[in-house]
């Protein structure tokens, strides 16, 4: 026999806020929110009180003051009469430069080392293991100052290049000089080039954009587009007739002929660095701080990337390699055509976080005096103006923006190459 009973109709009791699952989550969340807001209000209140007591309320006016310090390694023009905002902007560009250079070299070295650690040659695998363990287990800051000390202490000074039988000589047909004041490389010059265009007038964001560079990029872009069209045509013909037309000489011609013509038209030549007086002049001067930071960050991050690449390759089942071998593909093509494309899907997410780490580690530039955003905004500007709160918060905001931008771009790429699953 069954009886149908209504559930007991109870009124709302206060204890139900905790013991009734219908209300509990709301209770917990409201308590958490209130706690969070109380904490935030407490911190902000303290901050305002303290700043008032110190007599420096939040004010970003210092950005328009004259910076009056010099930045020796820079992409855009800058002098010590420029404002703090301009200095920070130059610093930001320096951060981006070293991060981009570091990411590229770290990836190249990392992939090479990761593949070499799996080499059938016992000695190669061991050497790479030693490299990886050596770099992963020692702080990156130590590597940075070590490289810096190495560059300053053990390279020849510019005066060693002087005279008939100089102690040191330039390398690559007298094009590159490696000295203890930095590396001098040739700079591209254009004798009949277009003039630069000045963007943003006299504002702190002003920059000179080289029309020559833009022309080269545009021509290269068009060439690559035409090349891809030719390749698409070849594939289409192959699908229709089964025979792939030979197009490589068209492709090479399309790629190189226009750019060479443009270079000749612009009067392209290299400006070699030359010894004059006590130092080199001409050419592009890469300072020790940049080189040390770049090398140390690349080699350090490459050790991590190598482990990721190795893990990614090991994650691909051995059957894939064997199947490719059964199809008669040669070993190095198995790696590039079968294993790596699949391993890439495992590799990319941790690779992103390593790029992020490299970018964040580039803030250690302050230890060797490379003027990145930490060295300018978080270093000299902060010490000169005494605006710690504004400077540190802005610095954090800048890094947060860079990090979020990198992870957004790389996530987009990751979604593109991700295996589509049902």
């Amino acid at each position, binding site marked *: 026999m069954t009886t149908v009973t209504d559930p007991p109709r109870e009124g709302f009791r206060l204890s139900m806020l905790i013991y009734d699952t219908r209300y509990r989550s709301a209770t917990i969340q409201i308590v958490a929110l209130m706690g969070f807001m109380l904490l935030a209000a407490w911190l902000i209140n303290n901050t305002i009180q303290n700043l008032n007591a110190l007599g420096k309320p939040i004010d970003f006016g210092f950005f328009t003051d004259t910076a009056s310090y010099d930045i020796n390694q820079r992409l855009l023009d800058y002098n010590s009469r420029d404002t703090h905002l301009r200095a920070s902007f130059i610093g930001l560009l320096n951060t981006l430069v070293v991060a981009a250079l570091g990411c590229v070299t770290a990836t190249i070295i990392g992939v090479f080392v990761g593949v070499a650690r799996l080499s059938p*040659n016992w000695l190669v695998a061991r050497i790479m293991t030693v490299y990886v363990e050596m770099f992963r*287990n020692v702080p990156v800051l130590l590597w940075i100052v070590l490289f810096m000390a190495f560059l300053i202490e053990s390279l020849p000074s510019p005066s060693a290049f002087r005279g008939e039988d100089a102690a040191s000589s330039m390398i690559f047909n007298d094009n590159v000089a490696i000295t203890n004041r930095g590396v001098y490389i040739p700079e591209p010059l254009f004798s009949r080039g277009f003039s630069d265009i000045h963007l943003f007038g006299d504002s702190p964001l002003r920059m000179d954009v080289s029309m020559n560079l833009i022309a080269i990029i545009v021509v290269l872009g068009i060439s690559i587009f035409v090349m891809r069209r030719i390749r698409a045509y070849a594939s289409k013909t192959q699908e229709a007739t089964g025979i792939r037309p030979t197009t490589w000489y068209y492709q090479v011609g399309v790629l190189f002929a226009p750019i060479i013509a443009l270079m000749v038209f612009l009067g392209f030549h290299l400006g070699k660095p030359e010894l004059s007086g006590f130092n080199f002049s001409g050419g592009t001067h890469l300072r020790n701080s940049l080189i040390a930071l770049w090398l140390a960050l690349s080699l350090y991050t490459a050790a991590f990337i190598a482990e990721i690449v190795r893990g990614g390759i090991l994650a691909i089942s051995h059957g894939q390699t064997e199947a490719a071998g059964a199809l008669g593909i040669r070993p190095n093509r198995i790696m590039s055509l079968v294993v790596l494309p699949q391993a890439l899907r495992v590799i990319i997410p941790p690779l992103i976080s390593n790029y992020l780490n490299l970018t964040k580690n580039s803030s250690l530039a302050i230890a060797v005096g490379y003027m990145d955003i930490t060295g300018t905004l978080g270093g000299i500007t*902060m010490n000169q103006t005494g605006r*710690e709160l504004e400077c*540190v918060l802005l610095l954090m905001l800048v890094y947060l923006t860079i990090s979020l931008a990198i992870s957004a771009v790389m996530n987009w790429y990751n979604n593109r190459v991700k295996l589509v699953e049902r």
Partner: protein
Amino acid sequence: MSDTHSNTVAYVRDTMLPEAAPPPTEVGVVGWTRKNLFSGWFNSIVTIICLLLIYYVLAGILPWIFQSVWTADSLTECREIMQATWGESHGHACWGVIRERWPQLLFGFYPTEYYWRPILAMALLLVSLAPILFADRVPSKFLYVTLAYPFIMPWLMWGGTIWNPIMAAMGFVLAGLIINYASDVIGSLGSMIAAVAAAILWWLFLTTPVADVFASILPLAMETVESRQFGGFMLSILIGVVAIGCSLPIGIVLALGRQSDLLIVKSICVGFIEFIRGVPLITLLFVASTLLNIFLPPGTNFDIILRVIIMVTLFASAYMAEVIRGGLAALPKGQYEGADSLGLDYWQAQRLIIMPQALKISIPGIVSTFIGVFKDTVLVSIIGLLDPLGLANAIRADSAWTGIYWELFAFIGAMFFIFCFSMSRYSMYLERKLQTDHR
């Protein structure tokens, strides 16, 4: 079939040959060398290049390390001895700097007569870690040392009266008592809230006066050591150990918050984690050195090492949270559903079912976070604390040792390598030990 063969083949063997030994070039050292080093012309060339590389590196480094000067009080004296012993040749290390300065590299400017205190703290650290790290070999009685360690360690390092750490510990005892005895009266949740409130009230208002009273009755105190005297590997280990120890529980809470269905809790956790992970540690250290006092009530001015530890802990816990979240996400959904079907509530399920498995999965990540935190402690040299790297600069500033680089870097690097490498080996051991799946 057989008669066709009997016509075409002149000779057919009908007995098996005795088993022959493999050719000598395929076994032993020769076989291994042929297989692993000279398996083709390309591999042979690579092997020879590698051997040359190893030879040149070792030929440069080994004489530098071993043909070196240990007894010298300055770089000039070192160079004179080298000149006298090996003539004009360069490339000899001057380990005299390590011999003369190693107490400083290990302890900073900690008073010499109190070196036994950090050494004792380090020994107790090993004792208190033993029951956690090697749970199956060390009796669990040592866990009492582990429980007492967080209170003994600061007293040993900074000195002062013993009653402060004891009274701080009493807060936990008080909370434990309340949970134990009051839960029958006001329910488990009520007792929990009461315990937390009582402990906080105790720490805020009663600890200092009660400790003062006890100290006046029985003055058990050690000489106080100022924070600015801390330095060297002692400082690195201190910051690293505290940050590592505190970041694990905070990281677990943050990871659970990020995985929870409660929208507000989740967004607070996500915001915190992503913010911390998006900025470099050096900016957080700037906060510790310049801003933390501004965020706290006017007049607060607490220790720089404590401020650094707080920021490094926050930094580490955000990374730890992500590692543990990975472990939580890797658990099959059936484990959560199984826990629910057994009627376990949220915390029971986490404690008994989810966390043991999730933490086990995330061991490699947790340990590499530990290693990362320990390595990152050298960044404190940038804000002026005397960690090993900061001390290296201080030693170079001394006129006796101006211009000495490689010996100091080699020593510091080797120390870090030993610590970090042994941590990563331990994680491999732990992974093998906890492995329960069949293979």
